[in-house]
């Protein structure tokens, strides 16, 4: 944890009507590391993502990317600053082919069509989508669409990649494949990743650091083995369940 943070979130808060969705959350993502943001449903993970990526503005708090303040930027400006994000509810460009989907992202990094096409092919190969390149995105399966989300975001050449439950619905062997792909990605390109995931198998295998949210607040953070033994975390995940539940 000695590396300088690529992303720093300070006291981020967002209130929707009566609900305090995110409540003074602070954490940081060191350069080149993989940090997981976990918590039960409704903990504020996706809202935190939206606040970082500019989809919604925070009520208070700030977001720093590589030391620069990126709080409240528009989504396209956040992308320009170096934040690549995926959507939990996938948003493929249905009528475009898988390759064209990724090229839309790649064209953010280069105006040259040939370069964009080659970069997109490399990303599709890395994420195991190459054989689907010419398929219209609307005919992909859900796990494939999730991978396409990742491929597209990656193509914008972000400094940090925000992955919102991209492994949901994958089979265990596919999860292991994705885990390997992401581990290789950070090792080879030095990209940093912030992810939310319900698949604990992936979280434990990938993350260098875990931040746990509950009711919009950070209740714990630390190394995976540390977090998995934290009594507060166990309580919010398992609850005060009656015996036998």
């Amino acid at each position, binding site marked *: 944890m000695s590396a300088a943070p690529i992303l720093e979130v300070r006291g981020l808060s967002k209130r929707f009507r009566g609900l305090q969705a995110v409540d003074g959350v602070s954490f940081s993502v060191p350069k080149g590391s993989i940090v997981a943001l976990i918590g039960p449903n409704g903990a504020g993970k996706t809202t935190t993502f939206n606040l970082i990526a500019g989809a919604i503005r925070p009520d208070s708090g700030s977001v720093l990317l590589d030391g620069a303040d990126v709080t409240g930027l528009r989504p396209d400006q956040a*992308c320009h600053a170096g934040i690549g994000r995926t959507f939990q509810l996938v948003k*493929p460009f249905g009528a*475009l082919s898988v390759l064209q989907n990724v090229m*839309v992202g790649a064209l953010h990094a280069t105006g040259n069509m040939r370069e964009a096409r080659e970069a997109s092919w490399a990303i599709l190969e890395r994420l195991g989508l190459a054989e689907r390149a010419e398929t219209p995105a609307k005919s992909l399966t859900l796990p494939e669409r999730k991978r396409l989300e990742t491929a*597209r975001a990656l193509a914008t050449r972000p400094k940090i990649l925000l992955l919102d439950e991209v492994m949901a619905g994958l089979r265990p062997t596919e999860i292991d494949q994705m885990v390997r792909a992401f581990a290789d990605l950070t090792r080879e390109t030095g990209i940093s990743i912030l992810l939310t995931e319900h698949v604990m198998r992936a979280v434990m295998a990938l993350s260098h650091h875990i931040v746990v949210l509950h009711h919009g607040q950070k209740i714990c953070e630390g190394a995976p083995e540390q977090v998995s033994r934290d009594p507060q975390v166990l309580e919010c995940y398992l609850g005060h369940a009656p015996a036998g539940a």
Partner: protein
Amino acid sequence: MRGAGPVALSPRTALALAGFVAIMVVLPFIANDYIVSVLVVVLFSAYFGQSWNIITGFTGQLSLGHALYVGLGAYTSAALFVHFDLSPWLGMPAGMAVAAIAGSLIAALSFRFRVGGVYFALLTIAFSEFVRILFDHFKWVGATEGLFLPVANLAHDDPLHLRGSPTMFYYFLLALTLGVLGLSHLLLNRRVGYYWQAIREDEEAAQALGIDVFRCKVMAMALSAALTALGGGFLAFYDNNLYPDTAFSLGRSIEIITAPIIGGLGTLFGPILGAFLLTSLGETMTNLTSGWEIAGLKQWFYGAALLLIVALLPSGIWPWLRRVIGLEESGR
């Protein structure tokens, strides 16, 4: 496939396109005056449809007021010609500029305040109607009395002043139609075309990928309006008379969108195919029903045929036909 850029056409598609162009070039030599005049209507319809296709088919923003840009292009070039004897070759670019500015303003106003979907469509109608009423009182261009161009001397064509036979207009419109076909193909295979289609498919995802959605939409509208206005300029010099009620009519706006929808929204060749089908369908219905003295019979048949096409091929005829005859293109 990997190395081949989509800008290059396959031999089969190139051959089909060359065949189409060859037939279109030769047609006036073998067809009679009536057929040529119908083909001029087809090409106007195809050209306007293609221009509208840029904002609605490629970018996904439904404009129902494109008669506005036809009218602005027509009136600008015609008025400059009538009052200042300015060549239409200067007047039409002026009309394009006027339309581009009008389109950008309408788009900017709508998209800045996040007006989209049907509300954007309503706004485009409102602006078109607003300008129509404005022109009803615009004395300099004849108001409701209309604006007239001096009648052409048909003895020989004068392309420099756009005075001449339907055949001359036929070739100009053919060039325009093929020009926009090429332009659309080129743009769809460039960054801007990818961005437009991404916006059409999912605006939020497009924005997350760094696309300045507002700027891209305004650009598409400006280009679409300018191209439409260029066609409007030719229309003014072809018809020789302009009235606000016809130039800016809502009916024209609807006519403009029908051919691309029937042919295949967002495709490259759909608007051209749709224009051929609809115009020839309309002409056939007119001829078929001319012996009958039943009011509205033509419209009834026309409507039934449209209904049938839309019900059977909701994404248009071209996407289906293209698969049948094995051609590819860069539109959807």
